[in-house]
């Protein structure tokens, strides 16, 4: 019977760490890992199935906690967190055996034949000195891994990496953000019920708990959050040589080219609004931060955005809430700058009592204002106009590399230039944010937006060690490997390493074992 779900006549272990110190939790987990429990393929599959059950059984409760923490409408919660999580875990379950299987690297034997049959053209595999041999890459778990998740997608950013870590065969500690307390409590209560609580732990708490966790060595760490904390995490990880992956934020620009036709324009605007205000009220690392558009097109764009926003936000629930007072103050402060306030063309109303900021559009705020230099992470959308749309590339180049660049355009040459001349975690044309839902492409940043990629197979690989395995037989020995060395042995080796097999063959005729 496969080990796994905590519900096997056993009481799940205490999810919180009130009774255990983090140190003993970490060493306990290591023991569990060393026992081989989590490496077992059946165990991993049972954990993934457990996750799917958790997500399907507890759907209503999930909608409730996400609404409590962030005011997300269930439609948004399903679309952005629950729905794609289930899809992703199913995808992982389907492909797990394939991903975990050893991969053969081409062996020198068949290669030698290829060489002798065709011309002596180079292909890079083990040279003859290692003949005959088999070479494989074997994925194995890293051990005990730590995941820090963020408050804005508190379910998705916790469970997506968790599923990858479990699929790769690790024991896991998950520390959800305390800024989304209902979801954190939900995870702490339910993970022990649906997953193997001996190998998967949820630790609740604030920054001090995070710091304490960082005192220990982990076999891998995935952090989703701000640049500032990312630096602190990596510095602490360096003490233990804990490898890290950092998923950080950035100002994701959206280039909007001149679009013909009412339909295309409407579709573009729908998608822009969807990727700004409908995605956690703009509080998302991949939300559109600001727009770059030609000055002629800007008025058309703004008008259409206004009317569409009216429709989308007609009923309550169209937009999530600002997280808390602190972020509300931060965002209001952007609008307090007089020059910025003067650039408001839509919205701008704030209500400190309810912590609401209505969808706000700015037209050409000063490029050195805070709203244009810091990651906005909120429902304010600056629009910057340029003379020709190609100028937007020059605008972007000196800026820190963002997590995503978006561009709405039908111009193939502009698309090519954007891909070739800018750098970002990803590029999406004619849509935004949806790249998050695609398992076949890696999700992650570059430069200041972070490093390390996940989703789909990339999650599995992020939490694996790809071990090189090389096997030889005792049968054939080449004396030129061994000392004492002389020029003739070196000569032979030269032939071997240049793949000059004819010359080698001739030399070999003269060698003894």
């Amino acid at each position, binding site marked *: 019977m496969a080990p796994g779900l905590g519900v096997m006549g056993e009481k799940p272990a205490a999810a919180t760490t009130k009774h255990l110190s983090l140190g003993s939790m970490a060493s306990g987990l290591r023991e569990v890992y060393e026992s081989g429990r989590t490496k077992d393929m059946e165990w991993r599959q049972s954990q993934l199935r457990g996750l799917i059950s958790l997500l399907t059984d507890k759907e209503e409760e999930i909608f409730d906690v996400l609404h409590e923490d962030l005011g997300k409408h269930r439609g948004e919660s399903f679309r952005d967190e629950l729905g794609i999580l289930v899809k992703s875990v199913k995808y992982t379950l389907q492909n797990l055996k394939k991903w975990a299987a050893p991969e053969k690297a081409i062996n020198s034997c068949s290669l030698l034949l290829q060489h002798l049959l065709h011309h002596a053209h180079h292909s890079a595999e083990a040279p003859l000195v290692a003949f005959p041999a088999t070479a494989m890459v074997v994925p194995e778990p890293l051990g005990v891994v730590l995941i820090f998740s963020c408050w804005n997608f508190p379910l998705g950013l916790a469970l997506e990496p968790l599923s990858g870590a479990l699929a790769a065969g690790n024991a896991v500690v998950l520390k959800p953000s305390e800024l989304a307390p209902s979801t954190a409590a939900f995870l702490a209560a339910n993970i022990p019920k649906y997953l193997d609580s001996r190998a998967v732990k949820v630790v609740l708490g604030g920054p001090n708990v995070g710091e304490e966790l960082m005192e220990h060595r982990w*076999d891998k760490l995935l952090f989703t959050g701000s640049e500032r904390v990312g630096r602190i995490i990596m510095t602490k990880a360096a003490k233990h040589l804990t490898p890290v992956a950092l998923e950080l934020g950035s100002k994701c620009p959206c280039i909007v080219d001149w679009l013909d036709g009412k339909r295309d324009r409407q579709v573009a605007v729908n998608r822009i609004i969807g990727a700004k205000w409908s995605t956690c009220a703009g509080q998302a690392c991949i939300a559109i931060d600001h727009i770059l558009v030609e000055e002629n097109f800007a008025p058309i764009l703004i008008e259409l955005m206004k009317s569409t926003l009216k429709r989308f936000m007609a009923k309550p629930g169209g937009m999530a809430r600002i997280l808390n007072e602190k972020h509300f103050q931060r965002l209001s402060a952007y609008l307090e700058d007089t020059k910025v306030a003067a650039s408001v063309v839509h919205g701008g109303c704030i209500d400190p009592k309810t912590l609401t900021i209505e969808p706000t559009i700015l037209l050409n705020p000063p490029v050195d204002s805070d709203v244009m230099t810091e990651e906005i992470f909120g429902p304010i959308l600056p629009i910057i106009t340029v003379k020709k749309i190609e100028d937007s590339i020059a605008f972007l180049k000196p800026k820190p590399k963002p997590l995503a660049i978006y561009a709405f355009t039908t111009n193939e040459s502009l698309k090519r230039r954007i891909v070739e001349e800018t750098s970002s975690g990803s590029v*999406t044309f004619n849509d935004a944010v949806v790249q998050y839902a695609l398992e076949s492409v890696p999700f992650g940043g570059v430069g200041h937006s972070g490093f390390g990629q996940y989703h789909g197979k990339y999650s599995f690989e992020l939490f694996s060690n790809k071990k090189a395995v090389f096997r030889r*037989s005792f049968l054939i020995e080449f004396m030129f490997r061994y000392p004492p060395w002389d020029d003739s042995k070196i000569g032979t080796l030269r032939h071997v390493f240049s793949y000059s097999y004819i010359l080698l063959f001739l030399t070999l005729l003269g060698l003894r074992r």
Partner: protein
Amino acid sequence: MKPDKVFLLHIQSGLLLQVSFFRLSDLAFINDAQVPAGVTTFPSSAQIVSEPLGCVLVISAWNYPFLLSIDPVIGAIAAGNAVVLKPSEIAPATSALFAKLLPVYVDNSCIKVVEGGVPETTELLDQKWDKIFYTGSGNIGRIVMAAAAKHLTPVALELGGKCPAIVDSDVDLHVAVKRLAVGKWGCNNGQACIAPDYVVTTKSFAPELVDSLKRVLERFYGQDPLQSEDLSRIVNSNHFYRLTNLIDDKKVSQKIVHGGQRDEKQLKIAPTLLVDVPLETALMTAEIFGPFLPIVTVEKIEDSIEFVNARTKPLAAYLFTRNKKLQGEFVSNVPAGGLLVNDVALHVTNPQLPFGGVGESGMGSYHGKLSFDCFSHKKAVLIRGFGGEAGARYPPYTAEKQSILRGLINGSFFALVLALLGFPREKR
């Protein structure tokens, strides 16, 4: 510091392979990889585009000063980056060679060599890089990673460790011992991150193994190894004394069964065998990086896996056996950067195999295409058109929309069709 011939042998092995691998006409892997896009974002196409990271810093080590500099630099250049190489000051002749020759053969405006020691390295580490590639010790690795953290710079650390070699009694002893010996003493007299650090074998087999090793050592290096031209010297007096201190410890010296001679003037130490050195001694806890080969004995050969796993994960682990079951257990249960069965060190010659450590032995890997990947960013590119607009995505989130969305996300073609047909129909 190395005998000429050993030098040629080793640079040839790594270098020619890497350079030939990267012949321009073979750079097929830099082409964009098309990947499936799926129902949820239909219609769309997706690609993964490799792009350079930018300006990278390569800090190399002293033991293979040429190879460990050029190898990563080749990867960085192939991936399209600008590179600064900081060769080890402990191999000053090679460092000077790079400083003099590299600018002559490559584009000096984007590939630079910076020579120097700790102060220069510290200053380099203060700068912002798009990647740092470091080969060396775990202590400095920590310093490099902490410095990189200030700029959120990703790092690849190729560190060391104690590489174990398990030797079973069912082997072709003559061949096994030759391979073991060349992997240990043939590689810079043990000063290599992948040289076998220690051997584990059964109590009953140990004497035979020791005898065979003695014979092979004599064959390779003659009666007086300190006079052999084929034996590398110790890199400098610091390391020479570090090593002699290791075996001069009383608890250790009484376990020497062969060798132990040293020549301070030449900075040479002879290949030395020891049996069952107490595990708490420095020799048995720190990476040796020298010509001492301690042999640890266990009751049965299966116990060796437990012994190895009780220690930090090594860069490489070796097993000599014909027993398929033991081989299987070794491959499944010993975590390491790389594993070899019935040979030593050769996995580095296969550019398809990742070369790199795990845990204390490092993070990140390279060689062959992986060198290219190490210095690249894999950018996801998703291309959509304006067709296929699913109104179900947007607020207000009616029940109808939610059910179509559910279908779409679950990959249901029916839901897709409905969505494409414009359901649910909204009153405008």
